[in-house]
């Protein structure tokens, strides 16, 4: 049995037919072709598949696509604006906050939501905020630096 669902992904209305067991991660990647969302463990621990559901970061591998019928989803492909990469994306480039790039989309989504909620996080708040995302390459130091740098960039842009 297939369910016709509607997802608003990165601001675009997408209609798709999926079986009930289709994970949101697979739906985004394989049904909608948005392969920027990555799948690292499929049991909710690594955070690679984190996307924003109505603005809040969630694990797309622990969500059935049918459950979020009608909802707004932002993936890594939707973070950049018309003028290019978002402050979070630019900060990750500037601070070498990524190596292989596989976990990166999850960190970007998580950090984007974190900074929306808390534009000037302390070190501890950054650590807590990204504490559910695994990275095997960077040792996290430059990721933490990137989040702080993104906060600075956002503040600068706000001030303009």
């Amino acid at each position, binding site marked *: 049995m297939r369910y016709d669902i509607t997802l608003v992904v990165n601001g675009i209305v997408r209609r798709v037919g999926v079986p009930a067991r289709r994970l949101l991660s697979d739906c985004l990647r394989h049904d909608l072709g948005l392969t920027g969302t990555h799948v690292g463990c*499929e049991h*909710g621990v690594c955070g690679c598949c984190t996307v924003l559901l109505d603005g809040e970061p969630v*694990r797309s591998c622990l969500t059935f696509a049918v459950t979020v019928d009608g909802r707004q989803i932002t993936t890594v492909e939707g973070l950049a604006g018309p003028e290019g990469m978002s402050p979070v994306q630019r900060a990750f480039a500037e601070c070498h906050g990524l190596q292989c790039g596989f976990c990166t989309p999850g960190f970007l989504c998580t950090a984007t939501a974190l900074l929306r909620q808390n534009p000037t996080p302390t070190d501890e708040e950054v650590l807590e905020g990204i504490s559910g995302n695994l990275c095997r390459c960077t040792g996290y130091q430059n990721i933490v630096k990137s989040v702080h740098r993104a906060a600075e960039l956002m503040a600068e842009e706000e001030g303009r």
Partner: protein
Amino acid sequence: MKPAPFDYYAPRDLGEALDVLAEAGEHGKVLAGGQSLIPLLNMRLAAPERLVDINRIASLEPFEVTPDGVRIGALARHSQVERSEGIAAVQPLLRQALRLVAHPVIRNRGTVVGSLVHADPAAELPAVLALLGGSVRLARAGGVRDVPAGEFFTGPLESALEPGELAVSAHFPRLPERTGSSFVEVARRHGDYALAGVAAVVTVDDDLRVSEARVVCVGVGPVPLTADVSGWCERRPASTVDWAAVARAVQDRTEPEADIHATAEYRRHLVGVLAVRALTEAARHAL
């Protein structure tokens, strides 16, 4: 790691949900936040025939402060409850516990009631419910019952929830006056299930003497293990209570098991250490 197929139901209201669950009986499984269930489905460690997704039932969303405590609907997410200042004001232990539940992103989706129903003996929220003497409201087609925490948790990952029933809300009593609370635990990594954890509530009287003290331990038995240790406090001022002796009394009641992360003996030791920490912190908050 993809789930086995299941029949999917997404009822729009509670009545419909209860009908579906009644029909499904033991073949039915409720999907709320899914943060514990979906990993099991993905690994095919669970393969229910029918999945009843309650996420569209708006009446299950609210969580509110009631005259005698906090009532939390089945769809209230951990993060919503954690952020609620109203709830923190009447029952601070919930926020203290929620901050220890997994990671923020998991808490955005996971539900408080779902954690209770999952009944993991290492989880924080069942312990909070048990410590506070709260209850879970179970609905079935044609009936509702409130099950007190003491009867709700029946074993590891087992609860009093019967086939055909849906946990629609949970009630956490408010903290009495002059009462403090605390939740401390040791986990291997930040956000992991605790190797052991202890929550405590301590009440002091007008003379600031300890009139009531209770603890609950997680990760050291088949269900959250509660203990009333008021008697051990001998109605002394908090600063002169022999908390270590109290903690030993608690420790003696635990039945920890070994796993790959820690021995039983270490877990029992931790309970002693953590009980002292939780009780002294709760007593401090009570003053």
